[in-house]
């Protein structure tokens, strides 16, 4: 049986009359690369915040690896709210890379990566530094260790944010629109980095507008609309599926702008 990295069970979140999350269920097994696609305002951001329990849902459970986050559900069906400390302990098992990155500008690149390790994972400073160096090296920004976030480029900042999250050894990495805040010429670089991660077996959920990524790199596509996961499955199947009108309409529009979108192989042949 494959292990589960992240599971959402019946997540519901209401804002007045509207439901930002409407009975969201999914299970992401280890090693899977999922892209989350949907029109803006469909509830993607709320979902990410809810998965981290930064915005507790009105109902539902989040499970990271074999642990619940926020609320426990015992085998007997008893529900128990976790203490703040318990939540803090489980949260880093989800590695989050924000769209705005949210690096800490008063700390050096290395400190950005070591501080959570020391404070949260209680690692010794030298261990944290070794880990940080290894990660920064792997992400090819080891030479920037002593710089401040304000002194490095957008693409480099993103690598720091990734290293910061990876240093906590998460079960899964969440990326919130990793390409949308970048200069256009950097998009390709980030996508190939993500592809590298995917090839390396990293479990990822990527909220993205880069449909080429959703189609070519991810092994699964979840389509969200009005707080619901309305389509979920193999990217090519979802893209060409006509079962759900909203999904079909969305990808029809994409197809209209990029005529080769649904059938990339044709383009290659030409």
């Amino acid at each position, binding site marked *: 049986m494959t292990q589960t990295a992240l599971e959402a069970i019946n997540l519901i979140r209401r804002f007045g009359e509207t439901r930002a999350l409407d009975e969201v269920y999914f299970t992401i097994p280890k090693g899977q690369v999922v892209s989350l696609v949907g029109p803006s305002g469909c509830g993607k951001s709320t979902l990410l915040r809810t998965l981290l329990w930064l915005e507790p849902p009105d109902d539902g459970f989040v499970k990271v690896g074999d642990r619940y986050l926020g609320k426990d559900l015992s085998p007997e069906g008893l529900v128990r709210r976790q203490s703040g400390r318990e939540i803090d302990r489980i949260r880093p098992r989800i590695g*989050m890379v924000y769209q705005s990155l*949210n690096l*800490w500008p008063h700390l050096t690149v290395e400190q950005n990566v070591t501080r959570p390790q020391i404070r949260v994972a209680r690692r010794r400073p030298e261990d944290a530094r070794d880990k940080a160096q290894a990660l920064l090296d792997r992400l090819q920004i080891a030479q920037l260790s002593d710089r401040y976030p304000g002194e490095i480029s957008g693409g480099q900042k993103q690598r720091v944010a990734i290293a910061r999250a990876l240093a906590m050894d998460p079960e899964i990495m969440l990326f919130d629109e990793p390409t949308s805040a970048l200069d256009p010429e950097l998009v390709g670089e980030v996508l190939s980095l993500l592809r590298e991660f995917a090839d390396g077996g990293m479990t990822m959920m990527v909220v993205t507008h880069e449909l080429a990524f959703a189609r070519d790199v991810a092994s699964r596509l979840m389509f969200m609309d009005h707080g619901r996961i309305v389509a979920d499955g193999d990217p090519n199947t979802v893209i060409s599926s006509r079962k759900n009108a909203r999904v079909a309409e969305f990808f029809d529009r994409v197809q209209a702008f990029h005529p080769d979108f649904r059938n990339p192989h044709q383009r290659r042949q030409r």
Partner: protein
Amino acid sequence: MLDPTVITENLPLFLEGALMTLRVTAIAFVVGMTIGGIASVAILSSIAPLRWLAAAYVAVMRGTPFIVLLFLIHYGLPAMGVRLPALVNGTVALSLFAGAYYTEIIRACVKALPKGQWESARAIGMSPVAAARDIIIPQILGPMVPPVVNCTMTMIKESSVLSTITVAELTFAGLVVQGETFAPFEVFITVALIYWAITAAFAFGAALFERRLAGANRNRLMTPLVARYLLLDGGRT
């Protein structure tokens, strides 16, 4: 026309008063900052009653003249059976008053940070205390300096009101000397000049401190410059 002996003969009295002014303001600074730290956490918290309480405290302190607050405490505490020296009452009043302004400053500086700073710290598993200590506080210390300096200078000036409840600070010294010499112009000009010197020195020192703080962290945007303070940017309360 000016009689310099009025000043020279009573100089020790003036200086003693000035020392008391500094002492009272220093205590009000420490206590007020503590209050400010606590009240700003309350104001930024998600617990509504705490927020209201802190907001009400700030609104009352800001909406009422300091002299009235001072009298409320100076006459109110004995009415409740708490009899303390005027100096203590005055220091308590000034601390409470300063605390409200420090609360506003801290709140504004925290609010000015991008929301993601707090959130990213919490999302990676930092406790609220760790997130505040490691991520928020280091980032607001720099921006806090100019408004805190302004506010503290205002408190130096406001402390002159303590003379009305006979706290022997600089203004009170002036009133005493003027009662003995009947030379109000000389006396109050002297007192004013001493205040001016204190606030100028304070502003100058703060500007140097801010510059050093900026030097320690090149990365942070600072707007120091001694020149700005030479014109004494006294805050308004």
